[in-house]
């Protein structure tokens, strides 16, 4: 249901049109050696299907961020190929890179908001970039900000918000054009545990709309509690790729409930789910 609606919202991009069954992310023996000889990724092969929710874990310096950067072609791998939705992005002409990035929502530990723009304008910018009409912007931006629970802070500037709120703005910006893939690089790295749960819930809710979500984190405890696919990197290699805690398709609802209940933000989460449903039905 949600997936159907999302397809209607998203523009028909080349990324989508190539082979529906191709995994959204496919890495083939990806190796990245930085100038100076440090090997950040060592023959990483990985496949992530559409609609998955995947945790990428590992200690600092294990290559997680490098991996994320190769996915948006901020970095070119030294060897190997990266395919997004069946398309090899290594051979993509430079001109097409903005197009690729528009189809991948990214969230970072340091939020990366534009400091001299209001919350509203920060989110709107992602739409202006893709040439959305003013009408679309006026509809989508408030709806998305309602989804992340910031409808009362539209006209605040980022420095007037708490860390958690800033990260919500970043998530809203990443999601406002409903990309098929969302990458979150340590989204809760700067946040306290309760706020982190809030952000994770948000990502989970986004995942429920059909968007593939990849979350980089070093918070093992949370990962183990969440019963999702976990890919662990160590010194540039995939050392573990499994479902933690017996993940099954049916447990999706349970996963959400557990999150809401166990993390002590139940009522709030429920309200936001309603808000989300509303925004999708628009």
């Amino acid at each position: 249901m949600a997936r159907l609606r999302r397809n209607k919202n998203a523009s028909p991009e080349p990324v989508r049109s190539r082979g529906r069954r191709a995994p959204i992310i496919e890495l083939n023996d990806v190796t990245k050696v930085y100038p100076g000889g440090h090997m950040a990724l060592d023959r990483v092969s990985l496949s992530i299907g559409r609609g998955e929710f995947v945790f990428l874990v590992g200690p600092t310096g294990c290559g997680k961020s490098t991996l994320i950067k190769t996915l948006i072609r901020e970095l070119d791998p030294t060897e190997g190929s990266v395919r997004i939705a069946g398309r090899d992005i290594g051979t993509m002409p430079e001109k097409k890179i903005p197009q690729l990035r528009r189809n991948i929502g990214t969230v970072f530990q340091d939020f990366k908001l534009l400091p001299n723009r209001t919350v509203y304008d920060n989110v709107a910018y992602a739409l202006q970039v893709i040439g959305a009409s003013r009408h679309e912007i006026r509809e989508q931006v408030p709806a998305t900000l309602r989804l992340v629970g910031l409808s009362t802070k539209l006209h605040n500037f980022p420095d007037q918000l708490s860390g958690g709120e800033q990260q919500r703005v970043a998530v809203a910006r990443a999601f406002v054009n409903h990309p098929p893939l969302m990458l979150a690089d340590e989204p809760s790295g700067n946040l306290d545990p309760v706020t982190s749960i809030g952000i994770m819930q948000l990502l989970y809710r986004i995942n429920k709309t059909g968007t593939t979500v990849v979350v980089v984190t070093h918070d093992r405890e949370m990962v183990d509690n969440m019963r999702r696919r976990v890919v662990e990197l160590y010194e540039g290699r995939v050392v573990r790729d499994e479902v933690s805690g017996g993940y099954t398709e049916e447990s999706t609802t349970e996963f959400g409930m557990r999150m809401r209940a166990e993390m002590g933000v139940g009522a709030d989460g429920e309200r936001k789910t309603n808000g989300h449903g509303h925004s999708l039905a628009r």
Partner: protein
Amino acid sequence: MSRILFFFSEAFRALRRNGAPTLAAVVTTVVTLVLLGVLIPIFQTAQAKSDEVRGELNVHFALYDDATNAEIAAAKGKIEGLSDVSAVTFVSKQEALQTLKGELKDKTIVEELHTNPLPASLEVKPTDPKYLTQIEKEVMGTTDGGKADPISPAISNPFSRQQSTDKIEKVTSALKIVLTVLMALLVVASVMLVGNTIRLSIFTRRREVEVMRLVGATRWFIRWPFLIEGVVVGFLGGAVAIIILWIGKTTIVDPLSDTNSFAAAQHDATLAFPVLAAVLFGAAILVSTLGSGVTLRRFLRV
């Protein structure tokens, strides 16, 4: 259309939000333009003045008092036939006295003279002052014994009114070189100064550019607002500088023109004010736009 509006609103938003760097860029532009706007006319006037002085340099050949008109005409014709001679004029004894009278402060000296001791002469103007000595040698000639052997028997000896021909010649050409070098340095300095100020203001916003790239903005989408900013800075700086120059011209230079020959010289020697204004204005906009464009390239590399 809405896109163009968006770029303009982005540019003006950035200008407002980055007040201090914007002001710095505008002020830098104003200062350099005013400097250029003052120095260009000075340079041109000095050039014109030194050309004028050089143009006045000539050599006279005194004629024997008993030379006949035919002899003088023949001598004149011969000299005109030499290369690098631009004009030969006959100056009679009377005319020479009149000129002397005009140059002397104490007119009575001439009055007291009962005879006219000045010789008639042929005034020779070279095509360029540097040929003066060459012409003199050719006219006077030399015999094997080292004695003068003028090309015409009517000519007695050469003399020049300006004793310091050589000095003037050297000074004016040195002046030309110095002014040209100064001007070139100033132009380079202004371009670098304005470019640097713009670079600085963009550098403080490289994070912003990074975020723009991250959400999938194309290069030109990022670049346009910055270029428009550059145009606006150049426009503002140019406008203010031209107003300052115009005020300076009307209140200081124009009144001086009546009494001071150097200030007056600018009327015919320099660019007309509207032309100067247009040149400065164009340069300001071009430099600031290029400055932002070039700087951005570094941050836009994927």
